[in-house]
């Protein structure tokens, strides 16, 4: 009888694909209040900063754009941004969807007319 020996990492889940800024924004667009998304794990302040970041440059740029989009969404009151400590100098950065703020709707035609009049 043959015996198979499984490698200890054989069933380790695949590493999720890094999130881009547009994907993050699309998630916000579809999220229900209370939905949460971990958009980064590490030390965002360091990971996204040039020179001190240990990430490759394209990765660092992607993370910078993602962090900037997250901040923009926070300022628009679309998400709460929280972080959970997962170890020394290591955090899970979470976005939690908020109830969409109510604004007076502005039809595009009206917007264009106002712009042209100005």
């Amino acid at each position, binding site marked *: 009888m043959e015996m198979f020996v499984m490698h200890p990492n054989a069933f380790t889940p695949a590493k*999720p*694909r890094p*999130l881009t*800024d*547009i*994907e993050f*924004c*699309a*998630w*916000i*667009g*579809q999220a229900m209040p209370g939905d949460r998304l971990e958009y980064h794990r590490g030390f965002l302040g360091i990971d996204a900063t040039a020179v001190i970041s240990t990430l490759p440059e394209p990765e660092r740029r992607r993370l910078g754009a993602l962090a900037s*989009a997250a901040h*923009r*969404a926070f300022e*628009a009151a*679309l998400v709460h941004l929280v972080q959970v400590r997962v170890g020394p100098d290591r955090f899970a950065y979470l976005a939690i969807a908020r109830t*969409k*703020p109510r*604004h*007076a*709707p*502005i*039809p*595009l035609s009206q*917007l*264009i007319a*106002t*712009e*042209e009049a100005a």
Partner: protein
Amino acid sequence: MRIELSPDDIETIIHEADAAARRLRRKLNLPHCDREDLGQDLLVDLLRRLPAHDPARGTIGAFANIILRNQSSRIANRHHRQLRAQGGTVISLDAPISGGTERLGCVLAEADGLAAWQGQDRSAVDDAETHHDLARALGGLPDDMRGLCAALGTCAGPEIVSRTGISRSALYRHIARLRLDLAMRGFGAGWDGSKAA
């Protein structure tokens, strides 16, 4: 059977088929967009029958003419048969349906319309909802992005550059940001959780 055609023969065939298609379209009173379809139908039939051409009995042009005339006649008969099946005339969307006062256009579902056939399968309800959602999203945009939206609604990027004096790269940076702002309000990009995992 293999047939040898010179470039002149091919030109003659295509020219005759095209002329026959134009004649047939005029005769059947069909829209201009049907001319190419008719031309193809005629040409395919002609190519299928070309092996029967005997150069000793006449030129390829004369042969093509007879074939095209016969096929045109068959297409016209088929068209008239279809018209008769529909009540003998072209049906207007504004005409009342038989036995009622309602117009045909009113009882057709949007999925049966010409727009749906052409791949535009959006209903008026979907359109109204999109307009409403867009108005809500525009209401929530920051002022600068709203201005950019209005500008993009009326003119192209280069025109905005020349009108406002903003640099091209700055404009496209703003557009990229606008794309994000619209995406986080549910427009443009879609999120697929399973793909992202």
